[in-house]
Protein backbone atom coordinates (compact mmCIF):
# COMPACT_ATOMS: atom_id res chain seq x y z
CA UNK A 1 0.00 0.00 0.00
CA UNK A 2 2.67 2.43 1.09
CA UNK A 3 6.21 2.05 -0.14
CA UNK A 4 9.05 4.26 0.97
CA UNK A 5 12.57 3.87 -0.35
CA UNK A 6 15.52 6.09 0.43
CA UNK A 7 13.23 9.00 1.21
CA UNK A 8 14.98 12.28 2.02
CA UNK A 9 13.85 15.82 2.58
CA UNK A 10 16.38 18.57 3.08
CA UNK A 11 15.54 22.18 3.82
CA UNK A 12 17.53 25.32 3.67
CA UNK A 13 16.76 27.34 6.76
CA UNK A 14 17.63 30.96 7.21
CA UNK A 15 19.98 31.29 10.13
CA UNK A 16 19.09 34.32 12.19
CA UNK A 17 21.54 35.30 14.87
CA UNK A 18 20.14 37.14 17.92
CA UNK A 19 20.50 40.87 18.34
CA UNK A 20 19.31 43.91 16.44
CA UNK A 21 22.55 44.59 14.60
CA UNK A 22 22.80 41.04 13.37
CA UNK A 23 19.17 41.11 12.29
CA UNK A 24 19.74 44.22 10.22
CA UNK A 25 22.87 42.73 8.68
CA UNK A 26 20.89 39.62 7.81
CA UNK A 27 18.57 41.72 5.68
CA UNK A 28 21.39 42.13 3.22
CA UNK A 29 23.31 38.96 3.73
CA UNK A 30 21.61 35.76 4.71
CA UNK A 31 23.19 32.62 5.99
CA UNK A 32 21.52 29.30 5.54
CA UNK A 33 21.85 25.98 7.26
CA UNK A 34 20.86 22.70 5.72
CA UNK A 35 18.34 20.79 7.80
CA UNK A 36 17.96 17.10 7.02
CA UNK A 37 14.37 16.62 8.15
CA UNK A 38 14.16 13.16 6.63
CA UNK A 39 17.37 11.44 5.70
CA UNK A 40 17.09 8.09 3.95
CA UNK A 41 13.97 6.39 5.16
CA UNK A 42 12.80 2.93 4.07
CA UNK A 43 9.68 1.09 5.10
CA UNK A 44 6.50 -0.43 3.73
CA UNK A 45 2.99 -0.55 5.05
CA UNK A 46 0.62 -3.28 3.89
CA UNK A 47 -3.03 -2.72 3.04
CA UNK A 48 -5.17 -2.58 6.17
CA UNK A 49 -2.17 -2.36 8.46
CA UNK A 50 -2.09 0.06 11.38
CA UNK A 51 1.32 1.49 12.09
CA UNK A 52 2.40 3.78 14.88
CA UNK A 53 4.92 6.34 13.68
CA UNK A 54 7.06 7.49 16.57
CA UNK A 55 10.00 9.68 17.22
CA UNK A 56 11.09 12.64 19.34
CA UNK A 57 10.04 16.16 18.41
CA UNK A 58 11.69 17.22 15.17
CA UNK A 59 12.45 13.66 14.12
CA UNK A 60 10.74 14.18 10.77
CA UNK A 61 7.37 12.55 11.42
CA UNK A 62 5.17 15.38 10.19
CA UNK A 63 7.47 16.01 7.23
CA UNK A 64 7.13 12.37 6.22
CA UNK A 65 3.34 12.48 6.57
CA UNK A 66 3.23 15.64 4.47
CA UNK A 67 5.28 13.96 1.76
CA UNK A 68 3.05 10.90 1.87
CA UNK A 69 -0.03 13.08 1.42
CA UNK A 70 1.50 15.04 -1.44
CA UNK A 71 1.90 18.37 0.34
CA UNK A 72 5.68 18.22 0.11
CA UNK A 73 8.04 17.10 -2.59
CA UNK A 74 10.75 14.70 -1.44
CA UNK A 75 14.30 15.86 -2.08
CA UNK A 76 15.07 12.36 -3.26
CA UNK A 77 13.87 8.81 -2.89
CA UNK A 78 10.91 6.77 -3.99
CA UNK A 79 7.45 7.12 -2.64
CA UNK A 80 4.24 5.41 -3.61
CA UNK A 81 0.84 5.26 -1.95
CA UNK A 82 -1.53 2.70 -3.46
CA UNK A 83 0.33 2.99 -6.75
CA UNK A 84 0.18 6.78 -6.87
CA UNK A 85 3.01 9.24 -6.75
CA UNK A 86 1.73 11.53 -3.96
CA UNK A 87 3.39 14.75 -5.12
CA UNK A 88 1.53 14.77 -8.42
CA UNK A 89 -1.68 15.18 -6.39
CA UNK A 90 -3.96 13.34 -8.81
CA UNK A 91 -7.65 13.63 -8.00
CA UNK A 92 -7.94 9.85 -7.67
CA UNK A 93 -5.13 9.88 -5.11
CA UNK A 94 -6.55 12.77 -3.09
CA UNK A 95 -9.89 10.99 -2.90
CA UNK A 96 -8.25 7.93 -1.39
CA UNK A 97 -6.30 9.58 1.40
CA UNK A 98 -6.83 11.88 4.30
CA UNK A 99 -4.41 13.76 6.51
CA UNK A 100 -5.74 14.84 9.88
CA UNK A 101 -3.57 17.20 11.86
CA UNK A 102 -4.60 17.61 15.47
CA UNK A 103 -3.57 21.25 15.43
CA UNK A 104 -5.06 22.31 12.11
CA UNK A 105 -8.72 22.31 11.44
CA UNK A 106 -10.75 22.16 8.29
CA UNK A 107 -14.20 22.73 9.82
CA UNK A 108 -15.74 26.08 8.93
CA UNK A 109 -15.43 27.99 12.16
CA UNK A 110 -18.72 29.87 12.28
CA UNK A 111 -20.95 27.33 10.54
CA UNK A 112 -22.22 23.99 11.88
CA UNK A 113 -20.05 20.94 11.06
CA UNK A 114 -22.94 19.60 8.95
CA UNK A 115 -22.11 22.33 6.41
CA UNK A 116 -18.49 21.22 6.20
CA UNK A 117 -19.64 17.63 5.67
CA UNK A 118 -21.87 18.80 2.85
CA UNK A 119 -19.03 20.85 1.39
CA UNK A 120 -16.72 17.85 1.45
CA UNK A 121 -19.41 15.71 -0.16
CA UNK A 122 -19.46 18.11 -3.08
CA UNK A 123 -15.70 18.47 -3.23
CA UNK A 124 -15.03 14.75 -3.08
CA UNK A 125 -17.98 14.05 -5.34
CA UNK A 126 -19.50 11.43 -3.02
CA UNK A 127 -22.86 10.04 -4.27
CA UNK A 128 -25.77 11.28 -2.14
CA UNK A 129 -26.97 7.96 -0.68
CA UNK A 130 -23.46 6.72 -0.01
CA UNK A 131 -22.78 10.00 1.78
CA UNK A 132 -25.99 9.70 3.83
CA UNK A 133 -25.17 6.14 4.84
CA UNK A 134 -21.58 6.84 5.79
CA UNK A 135 -22.44 10.01 7.64
CA UNK A 136 -25.11 8.20 9.67
CA UNK A 137 -22.52 5.61 10.61
CA UNK A 138 -19.97 8.24 11.56
CA UNK A 139 -22.53 10.16 13.60
CA UNK A 140 -23.57 7.10 15.58
CA UNK A 141 -20.01 5.79 16.01
CA UNK A 142 -18.76 9.15 17.23
CA UNK A 143 -22.00 10.14 18.98
CA UNK A 144 -22.06 13.62 17.49
CA UNK A 145 -25.75 13.74 16.53
CA UNK A 146 -26.38 16.74 18.79
CA UNK A 147 -23.28 18.64 17.80
CA UNK A 148 -23.35 18.73 14.02
CA UNK A 149 -26.06 21.39 13.97
CA UNK A 150 -24.25 23.87 16.20
CA UNK A 151 -21.68 26.37 14.93
CA UNK A 152 -18.21 24.85 15.27
CA UNK A 153 -16.96 27.64 17.53
CA UNK A 154 -19.49 26.62 20.19
CA UNK A 155 -18.19 23.05 20.43
CA UNK A 156 -15.77 21.81 23.05
CA UNK A 157 -12.33 20.70 21.90
CA UNK A 158 -13.30 17.03 22.13
CA UNK A 159 -16.54 17.51 20.21
CA UNK A 160 -14.72 19.54 17.62
CA UNK A 161 -12.06 16.89 17.15
CA UNK A 162 -14.73 14.21 16.67
CA UNK A 163 -16.45 16.36 14.05
CA UNK A 164 -13.06 17.09 12.47
CA UNK A 165 -12.51 13.36 12.12
CA UNK A 166 -15.98 12.84 10.69
CA UNK A 167 -15.37 15.60 8.13
CA UNK A 168 -12.13 13.90 7.16
CA UNK A 169 -13.86 10.57 6.64
CA UNK A 170 -17.07 11.39 4.76
CA UNK A 171 -15.34 10.49 1.51
CA UNK A 172 -14.32 7.12 2.91
CA UNK A 173 -10.55 7.41 2.56
CA UNK A 174 -8.64 4.14 2.43
CA UNK A 175 -5.41 5.58 3.75
CA UNK A 176 -5.39 7.64 6.92
CA UNK A 177 -2.51 9.79 8.04
CA UNK A 178 -3.24 10.95 11.55
CA UNK A 179 -0.86 13.46 13.06
CA UNK A 180 -1.48 13.79 16.80
CA UNK A 181 -5.23 13.29 16.50
CA UNK A 182 -5.79 13.15 20.27
CA UNK A 183 -3.62 16.08 21.28
CA UNK A 184 -5.18 18.11 24.06
CA UNK A 185 -8.06 15.70 24.63
CA UNK A 186 -8.90 14.29 28.03
CA UNK A 187 -8.34 10.62 28.74
CA UNK A 188 -11.91 9.42 28.23
CA UNK A 189 -12.15 11.31 24.94
CA UNK A 190 -8.88 9.74 23.82
CA UNK A 191 -10.39 6.33 24.46
CA UNK A 192 -13.46 7.19 22.37
CA UNK A 193 -11.30 8.43 19.50
CA UNK A 194 -9.07 5.36 19.61
CA UNK A 195 -12.00 2.96 19.57
CA UNK A 196 -13.51 4.83 16.72
CA UNK A 197 -10.32 4.84 14.66
CA UNK A 198 -9.85 1.13 15.20
CA UNK A 199 -13.41 0.33 14.21
CA UNK A 200 -13.20 2.50 11.11
CA UNK A 201 -9.99 0.91 9.89
CA UNK A 202 -11.33 -2.60 10.54
CA UNK A 203 -14.65 -1.93 8.87
CA UNK A 204 -13.19 -0.34 5.76
CA UNK A 205 -9.92 -2.21 5.67
CA UNK A 206 -8.22 1.17 5.81
CA UNK A 207 -4.50 1.61 6.25
CA UNK A 208 -3.38 3.82 9.13
CA UNK A 209 -0.20 5.70 9.87
CA UNK A 210 -0.45 7.40 13.24
CA UNK A 211 1.79 9.74 15.16
CA UNK A 212 0.98 10.46 18.75
CA UNK A 213 2.60 11.61 21.92
CA UNK A 214 0.27 9.36 23.87
CA UNK A 215 1.75 5.90 23.95
CA UNK A 216 -1.63 4.50 24.92
CA UNK A 217 -2.97 5.56 21.52
CA UNK A 218 -0.22 3.61 19.84
CA UNK A 219 -0.53 0.60 22.12
CA UNK A 220 -4.29 0.40 21.57
CA UNK A 221 -4.23 0.91 17.81
CA UNK A 222 -0.97 -0.19 16.31
CA UNK A 223 0.46 -3.69 16.46
CA UNK A 224 3.48 -2.40 14.58
CA UNK A 225 5.57 0.67 15.26
CA UNK A 226 8.12 2.51 13.17
CA UNK A 227 10.47 4.76 15.11
CA UNK A 228 12.47 7.46 13.40
CA UNK A 229 15.10 9.71 14.82
CA UNK A 230 16.96 12.53 13.08
CA UNK A 231 15.17 11.56 9.91
CA UNK A 232 16.37 8.00 9.95
CA UNK A 233 14.74 4.72 10.79
CA UNK A 234 15.76 3.51 14.22
CA UNK A 235 13.24 0.73 14.79
CA UNK A 236 10.61 -1.17 12.81
CA UNK A 237 8.68 -4.04 14.33
CA UNK A 238 6.20 -5.12 16.94
CA UNK A 239 5.54 -2.84 19.87
CA UNK A 240 6.56 -5.56 22.37
CA UNK A 241 9.83 -6.01 20.56
CA UNK A 242 10.47 -2.28 20.86
CA UNK A 243 9.81 -2.43 24.58
CA UNK A 244 12.17 -5.41 24.81
CA UNK A 245 14.85 -3.55 22.97
CA UNK A 246 14.66 -0.33 24.90
CA UNK A 247 14.00 -1.79 28.31
CA UNK A 248 15.15 -5.36 28.31
CA UNK A 249 13.98 -5.58 31.91
CA UNK A 250 10.78 -6.65 33.57
CA UNK A 251 9.32 -5.18 36.69
CA UNK A 252 8.78 -7.34 39.71
CA UNK A 253 6.47 -6.06 42.44
CA UNK A 254 6.72 -7.82 45.79
CA UNK A 255 4.40 -7.33 48.71
CA UNK A 256 5.64 -8.48 52.12
CA UNK A 257 3.96 -9.71 55.27
CA UNK A 258 6.87 -8.42 57.40
CA UNK A 259 9.36 -5.57 56.88
CA UNK A 260 12.33 -6.49 54.66
CA UNK A 261 15.64 -4.63 54.49
CA UNK A 262 16.44 -2.88 51.20
CA UNK A 263 19.79 -4.63 50.92
CA UNK A 264 18.15 -8.03 50.73
CA UNK A 265 15.85 -6.95 47.92
CA UNK A 266 18.76 -5.37 46.09
CA UNK A 267 20.38 -8.79 45.72
CA UNK A 268 17.60 -9.70 43.27
CA UNK A 269 17.90 -6.75 40.92
CA UNK A 270 17.79 -2.94 40.64
CA UNK A 271 15.45 -1.44 43.21
CA UNK A 272 13.03 1.09 41.71
CA UNK A 273 11.01 1.73 44.84
CA UNK A 274 11.19 0.27 48.30
CA UNK A 275 9.38 0.53 51.60
CA UNK A 276 8.66 -1.83 54.42
CA UNK A 277 5.60 -3.45 52.88
CA UNK A 278 6.29 -3.28 49.15
CA UNK A 279 9.19 -3.29 46.77
CA UNK A 280 9.52 -2.79 43.02
CA UNK A 281 12.61 -4.22 41.33
CA UNK A 282 13.85 -4.20 37.78
CA UNK A 283 15.25 -7.49 36.50
CA UNK A 284 16.77 -8.51 33.16
CA UNK A 285 14.38 -10.53 31.05
CA UNK A 286 16.12 -13.89 31.25
CA UNK A 287 16.69 -13.86 35.00
CA UNK A 288 13.06 -13.22 35.95
CA UNK A 289 12.38 -16.89 36.73
CA UNK A 290 15.40 -17.24 39.02
CA UNK A 291 14.60 -14.00 40.86
CA UNK A 292 10.97 -15.00 41.41
CA UNK A 293 12.13 -18.37 42.79
CA UNK A 294 14.59 -16.72 45.14
CA UNK A 295 12.11 -14.15 46.35
CA UNK A 296 9.50 -16.77 47.14
CA UNK A 297 12.04 -18.95 48.92
CA UNK A 298 13.91 -16.29 50.90
CA UNK A 299 11.48 -13.43 51.57
CA UNK A 300 8.09 -13.20 53.34
CA UNK A 301 6.23 -12.57 50.08
CA UNK A 302 2.41 -12.44 50.16
CA UNK A 303 1.87 -11.17 46.64
CA UNK A 304 3.98 -11.01 43.53
CA UNK A 305 3.51 -9.41 40.14
CA UNK A 306 5.63 -9.31 36.97
CA UNK A 307 5.01 -6.74 34.26
CA UNK A 308 6.60 -4.66 31.51
CA UNK A 309 7.71 -1.15 32.40
CA UNK A 310 5.11 1.55 31.55
CA UNK A 311 5.13 2.57 27.90
CA UNK A 312 5.53 6.24 28.66
CA UNK A 313 8.77 5.44 30.44
CA UNK A 314 9.93 3.36 27.52
CA UNK A 315 9.31 6.24 25.17
CA UNK A 316 10.94 8.86 27.31
CA UNK A 317 13.91 6.57 27.72
CA UNK A 318 14.10 5.95 24.00
CA UNK A 319 13.88 9.63 23.12
CA UNK A 320 16.01 10.64 26.05
CA UNK A 321 18.71 8.33 24.80
CA UNK A 322 18.54 9.77 21.33
CA UNK A 323 18.76 13.27 22.76
CA UNK A 324 21.76 12.33 24.82
CA UNK A 325 23.38 10.73 21.78
CA UNK A 326 22.71 13.85 19.78
CA UNK A 327 24.20 16.11 22.43
CA UNK A 328 27.27 13.89 22.51
CA UNK A 329 27.57 13.92 18.74
CA UNK A 330 27.35 17.69 18.69
CA UNK A 331 29.95 18.23 21.36
CA UNK A 332 32.25 15.77 19.59
CA UNK A 333 32.04 17.49 16.22
Amino acid at each position, binding site marked *: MIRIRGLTKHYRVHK*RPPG*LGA*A*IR*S*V*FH*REYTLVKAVDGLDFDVARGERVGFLGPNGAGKTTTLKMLSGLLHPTSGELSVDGHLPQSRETAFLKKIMLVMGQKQQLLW*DLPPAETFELNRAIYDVPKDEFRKRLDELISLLEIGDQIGKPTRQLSLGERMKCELAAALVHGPRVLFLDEPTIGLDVSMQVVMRDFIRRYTEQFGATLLLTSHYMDDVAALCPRVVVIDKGQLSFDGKLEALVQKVRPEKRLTLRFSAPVAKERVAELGTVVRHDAAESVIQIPHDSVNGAVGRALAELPVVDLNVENPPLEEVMSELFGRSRAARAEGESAS
Partner: protein
Amino acid sequence: MTRYLRLLGIQLRASALLAAQYRWDFVVDGVISLFWAFTAIVPLFVVYGARRTGIPGWSFGEALVVTGWFILLQGILDGAINPGLAQVVDHIRKGTLDFVLLKPADAQFLVSTSKFALWRIFSVVSAFVIFGLAFRELGRLPAAVGVLESLALLVAATVLLYSLWILIVSAAFFVVKVDNLTYLFSSIFDAARWPSSVFRGALRTVFTFVIPLAVMTTFPAEALLGRLERSTLLGAMVGALVFASLARLVWIKSIGHYSSAGG
Protein backbone atom coordinates in the same frame (compact mmCIF):
# COMPACT_ATOMS: atom_id res chain seq x y z
CA MET B 1 7.56 55.57 35.24
CA THR B 2 11.10 54.59 34.24
CA ARG B 3 9.88 51.02 34.16
CA TYR B 4 7.31 51.97 31.53
CA LEU B 5 9.92 53.85 29.52
CA ARG B 6 12.14 50.80 29.63
CA LEU B 7 9.22 48.61 28.54
CA LEU B 8 8.57 50.97 25.66
CA GLY B 9 12.21 50.66 24.65
CA ILE B 10 12.06 46.89 24.69
CA GLN B 11 8.88 46.81 22.62
CA LEU B 12 10.40 49.22 20.08
CA ARG B 13 13.44 47.02 19.83
CA ALA B 14 11.29 43.94 19.26
CA SER B 15 9.48 45.74 16.45
CA ALA B 16 12.79 46.64 14.88
CA LEU B 17 13.90 43.02 15.04
CA LEU B 18 10.66 41.87 13.49
CA ALA B 19 10.92 44.40 10.68
CA ALA B 20 14.45 43.25 9.92
CA GLN B 21 13.35 39.65 9.67
CA TYR B 22 11.21 40.09 6.59
CA ARG B 23 13.51 41.50 3.99
CA TRP B 24 10.92 41.75 1.25
CA ASP B 25 8.58 43.79 3.39
CA PHE B 26 11.60 45.82 4.32
CA VAL B 27 12.13 47.05 0.78
CA VAL B 28 8.48 47.24 -0.10
CA ASP B 29 7.59 49.25 2.99
CA GLY B 30 9.86 52.09 2.05
CA VAL B 31 8.42 52.17 -1.47
CA ILE B 32 4.88 52.08 -0.13
CA SER B 33 5.41 55.03 2.16
CA LEU B 34 6.61 57.14 -0.74
CA PHE B 35 3.84 55.83 -2.90
CA TRP B 36 1.19 56.74 -0.32
CA ALA B 37 2.61 60.24 -0.08
CA PHE B 38 2.44 60.47 -3.85
CA THR B 39 -1.15 59.22 -3.99
CA ALA B 40 -2.06 61.77 -1.34
CA ILE B 41 -0.83 64.64 -3.50
CA VAL B 42 -2.15 63.49 -6.88
CA PRO B 43 -5.78 64.36 -6.01
CA LEU B 44 -4.68 67.92 -5.29
CA PHE B 45 -3.22 68.22 -8.77
CA VAL B 46 -6.52 67.01 -10.16
CA VAL B 47 -8.64 69.36 -8.06
CA TYR B 48 -6.33 72.31 -8.74
CA GLY B 49 -5.82 71.39 -12.40
CA ALA B 50 -5.81 73.85 -15.29
CA ARG B 51 -8.83 76.16 -15.47
CA ARG B 52 -10.14 74.99 -12.10
CA THR B 53 -10.91 77.01 -9.02
CA GLY B 54 -10.12 74.27 -6.52
CA ILE B 55 -11.56 74.03 -3.04
CA PRO B 56 -13.40 77.18 -2.04
CA GLY B 57 -11.40 79.20 0.50
CA TRP B 58 -8.16 77.25 0.03
CA SER B 59 -5.38 78.04 -2.39
CA PHE B 60 -3.23 75.24 -3.76
CA GLY B 61 -0.42 75.91 -1.31
CA GLU B 62 -2.81 76.04 1.63
CA ALA B 63 -4.47 72.79 0.67
CA LEU B 64 -0.98 71.29 0.36
CA VAL B 65 -0.37 72.12 4.05
CA VAL B 66 -3.49 70.13 4.96
CA THR B 67 -2.20 67.21 2.88
CA GLY B 68 1.13 67.44 4.69
CA TRP B 69 -0.63 67.11 8.03
CA PHE B 70 -2.62 64.23 6.67
CA ILE B 71 0.51 62.35 5.65
CA LEU B 72 2.18 63.11 8.99
CA LEU B 73 -0.75 61.81 11.01
CA GLN B 74 -1.19 58.85 8.71
CA GLY B 75 2.41 57.98 9.51
CA ILE B 76 1.68 58.18 13.23
CA LEU B 77 -1.52 56.19 12.82
CA ASP B 78 -0.03 53.40 10.71
CA GLY B 79 3.34 53.43 12.41
CA ALA B 80 2.49 53.60 16.09
CA ILE B 81 -1.23 53.14 16.58
CA ASN B 82 -2.73 50.69 14.09
CA PRO B 83 -0.20 47.85 14.52
CA GLY B 84 -1.09 47.61 18.20
CA LEU B 85 -4.77 47.63 17.41
CA ALA B 86 -4.33 44.75 15.01
CA GLN B 87 -2.54 42.83 17.76
CA VAL B 88 -5.33 43.30 20.29
CA VAL B 89 -8.00 42.22 17.86
CA ASP B 90 -5.86 39.16 17.18
CA HIS B 91 -5.47 38.50 20.90
CA ILE B 92 -9.21 38.66 21.46
CA ARG B 93 -9.91 36.31 18.57
CA LYS B 94 -7.38 33.75 19.71
CA GLY B 95 -8.21 34.19 23.39
CA THR B 96 -4.61 35.06 24.23
CA LEU B 97 -5.44 38.44 25.70
CA ASP B 98 -5.49 36.68 29.07
CA PHE B 99 -1.71 36.49 28.93
CA VAL B 100 -1.53 40.25 28.56
CA LEU B 101 -3.97 40.80 31.42
CA LEU B 102 -1.91 38.49 33.63
CA LYS B 103 1.15 40.69 33.37
CA PRO B 104 1.90 43.09 36.21
CA ALA B 105 1.73 46.24 34.10
CA ASP B 106 -1.08 48.37 32.77
CA ALA B 107 -2.83 46.38 30.05
CA GLN B 108 -3.67 49.45 27.99
CA PHE B 109 -0.04 50.46 27.96
CA LEU B 110 1.10 46.96 27.04
CA VAL B 111 -1.26 46.54 24.10
CA SER B 112 -0.70 50.10 22.88
CA THR B 113 3.02 49.61 22.64
CA SER B 114 3.02 45.98 21.56
CA LYS B 115 4.00 46.68 17.97
CA PHE B 116 5.37 49.51 15.87
CA ALA B 117 5.79 49.80 12.13
CA LEU B 118 9.03 51.73 12.16
CA TRP B 119 9.11 52.25 8.42
CA ARG B 120 6.40 54.86 8.74
CA ILE B 121 9.21 57.26 9.57
CA PHE B 122 9.24 57.70 5.81
CA SER B 123 5.79 59.27 6.02
CA VAL B 124 7.01 61.79 8.55
CA VAL B 125 9.87 62.74 6.26
CA SER B 126 7.52 63.02 3.27
CA ALA B 127 5.24 65.25 5.33
CA PHE B 128 8.05 67.69 6.03
CA VAL B 129 9.04 67.74 2.37
CA ILE B 130 5.45 68.63 1.53
CA PHE B 131 5.38 71.40 4.16
CA GLY B 132 8.48 72.80 2.52
CA LEU B 133 6.92 72.69 -0.95
CA ALA B 134 3.71 74.25 0.34
CA PHE B 135 5.39 77.26 1.93
CA ARG B 136 7.57 77.77 -1.11
CA GLU B 137 4.38 77.87 -3.15
CA LEU B 138 2.88 80.35 -0.69
CA GLY B 139 6.08 82.39 -0.81
CA ARG B 140 6.36 82.91 2.94
CA LEU B 141 7.33 81.19 6.17
CA PRO B 142 4.97 80.17 8.98
CA ALA B 143 4.97 82.48 12.01
CA ALA B 144 6.59 81.23 15.22
CA VAL B 145 3.29 81.39 17.10
CA GLY B 146 1.66 79.38 14.36
CA VAL B 147 4.34 76.69 14.63
CA LEU B 148 3.85 76.49 18.40
CA GLU B 149 0.10 76.30 18.04
CA SER B 150 0.34 73.60 15.45
CA LEU B 151 2.71 71.59 17.65
CA ALA B 152 0.16 71.78 20.45
CA LEU B 153 -2.46 70.59 17.98
CA LEU B 154 -0.18 67.78 16.87
CA VAL B 155 -0.22 66.50 20.43
CA ALA B 156 -3.99 66.92 20.58
CA ALA B 157 -4.40 65.12 17.25
CA THR B 158 -2.24 62.20 18.36
CA VAL B 159 -4.18 61.94 21.60
CA LEU B 160 -7.43 61.98 19.63
CA LEU B 161 -6.28 59.32 17.18
CA TYR B 162 -5.09 57.17 20.03
CA SER B 163 -8.33 57.60 21.97
CA LEU B 164 -10.41 56.72 18.93
CA TRP B 165 -8.23 53.67 18.59
CA ILE B 166 -8.87 52.62 22.18
CA LEU B 167 -12.60 53.06 21.62
CA ILE B 168 -12.44 50.81 18.57
CA VAL B 169 -10.45 48.18 20.42
CA SER B 170 -13.05 48.28 23.15
CA ALA B 171 -15.71 47.50 20.56
CA ALA B 172 -13.73 44.37 19.74
CA PHE B 173 -14.54 43.01 23.19
CA PHE B 174 -18.23 42.97 22.37
CA VAL B 175 -18.40 42.10 18.66
CA VAL B 176 -17.08 38.72 17.55
CA LYS B 177 -15.19 39.25 14.30
CA VAL B 178 -13.61 42.66 13.97
CA ASP B 179 -10.35 42.08 12.10
CA ASN B 180 -11.39 44.72 9.65
CA LEU B 181 -11.95 47.51 12.15
CA THR B 182 -8.42 48.77 11.55
CA TYR B 183 -9.17 49.01 7.89
CA LEU B 184 -12.41 50.85 8.58
CA PHE B 185 -10.59 53.30 10.80
CA SER B 186 -7.92 54.03 8.20
CA SER B 187 -10.44 54.46 5.46
CA ILE B 188 -12.53 56.93 7.46
CA PHE B 189 -9.33 58.75 8.32
CA ASP B 190 -8.76 59.17 4.59
CA ALA B 191 -11.39 61.91 4.63
CA ALA B 192 -8.95 64.01 6.67
CA ARG B 193 -6.83 64.67 3.59
CA TRP B 194 -9.27 67.44 2.59
CA PRO B 195 -9.91 70.74 4.36
CA SER B 196 -12.94 70.15 6.57
CA SER B 197 -14.84 72.97 4.90
CA VAL B 198 -15.74 70.69 1.98
CA PHE B 199 -18.03 68.68 4.21
CA ARG B 200 -21.52 70.01 4.80
CA GLY B 201 -24.44 69.20 7.03
CA ALA B 202 -24.37 65.86 8.80
CA LEU B 203 -20.88 64.91 7.54
CA ARG B 204 -19.50 68.14 8.95
CA THR B 205 -20.96 67.45 12.40
CA VAL B 206 -19.62 63.90 12.34
CA PHE B 207 -16.13 64.99 11.32
CA THR B 208 -15.98 67.75 13.93
CA PHE B 209 -17.44 66.08 17.00
CA VAL B 210 -17.83 62.31 16.54
CA ILE B 211 -14.66 61.57 14.56
CA PRO B 212 -12.88 64.91 14.92
CA LEU B 213 -10.91 64.79 11.68
CA ALA B 214 -11.01 68.58 11.47
CA VAL B 215 -8.94 68.84 14.64
CA MET B 216 -6.35 66.47 13.23
CA THR B 217 -5.47 68.07 9.90
CA THR B 218 -7.44 71.22 9.13
CA PHE B 219 -6.89 72.99 12.46
CA PRO B 220 -3.11 72.38 12.59
CA ALA B 221 -2.87 73.52 8.98
CA GLU B 222 -4.78 76.67 9.78
CA ALA B 223 -2.52 77.25 12.78
CA LEU B 224 0.56 76.97 10.58
CA LEU B 225 -1.04 79.36 8.12
CA GLY B 226 -1.67 81.73 11.02
CA ARG B 227 -5.43 81.88 10.70
CA LEU B 228 -6.66 79.67 13.52
CA GLU B 229 -8.72 81.37 16.20
CA ARG B 230 -7.55 80.98 19.79
CA SER B 231 -10.97 79.77 20.89
CA THR B 232 -10.86 76.94 18.33
CA LEU B 233 -7.41 75.96 19.56
CA LEU B 234 -8.62 75.87 23.14
CA GLY B 235 -11.73 73.92 22.17
CA ALA B 236 -9.61 71.36 20.37
CA MET B 237 -7.33 70.88 23.37
CA VAL B 238 -10.25 70.46 25.76
CA GLY B 239 -11.97 68.13 23.31
CA ALA B 240 -8.88 65.93 23.07
CA LEU B 241 -8.72 65.71 26.85
CA VAL B 242 -12.38 64.76 27.09
CA PHE B 243 -11.91 62.12 24.38
CA ALA B 244 -8.89 60.66 26.16
CA SER B 245 -10.70 60.33 29.50
CA LEU B 246 -13.73 58.84 27.81
CA ALA B 247 -11.55 56.29 26.02
CA ARG B 248 -9.80 55.30 29.25
CA LEU B 249 -13.16 54.87 30.97
CA VAL B 250 -14.58 52.72 28.17
CA TRP B 251 -11.39 50.65 28.12
CA ILE B 252 -11.64 49.86 31.83
CA LYS B 253 -15.31 48.95 31.45
CA SER B 254 -14.53 46.69 28.47
CA ILE B 255 -11.75 44.88 30.28
CA GLY B 256 -14.23 44.28 33.09
CA HIS B 257 -16.73 42.92 30.60
CA TYR B 258 -14.09 40.67 29.03
CA SER B 259 -13.01 39.18 32.36
CA SER B 260 -16.54 38.62 33.60
CA ALA B 261 -17.61 37.03 30.33
CA GLY B 262 -14.80 34.54 30.77
CA GLY B 263 -13.17 35.36 27.45
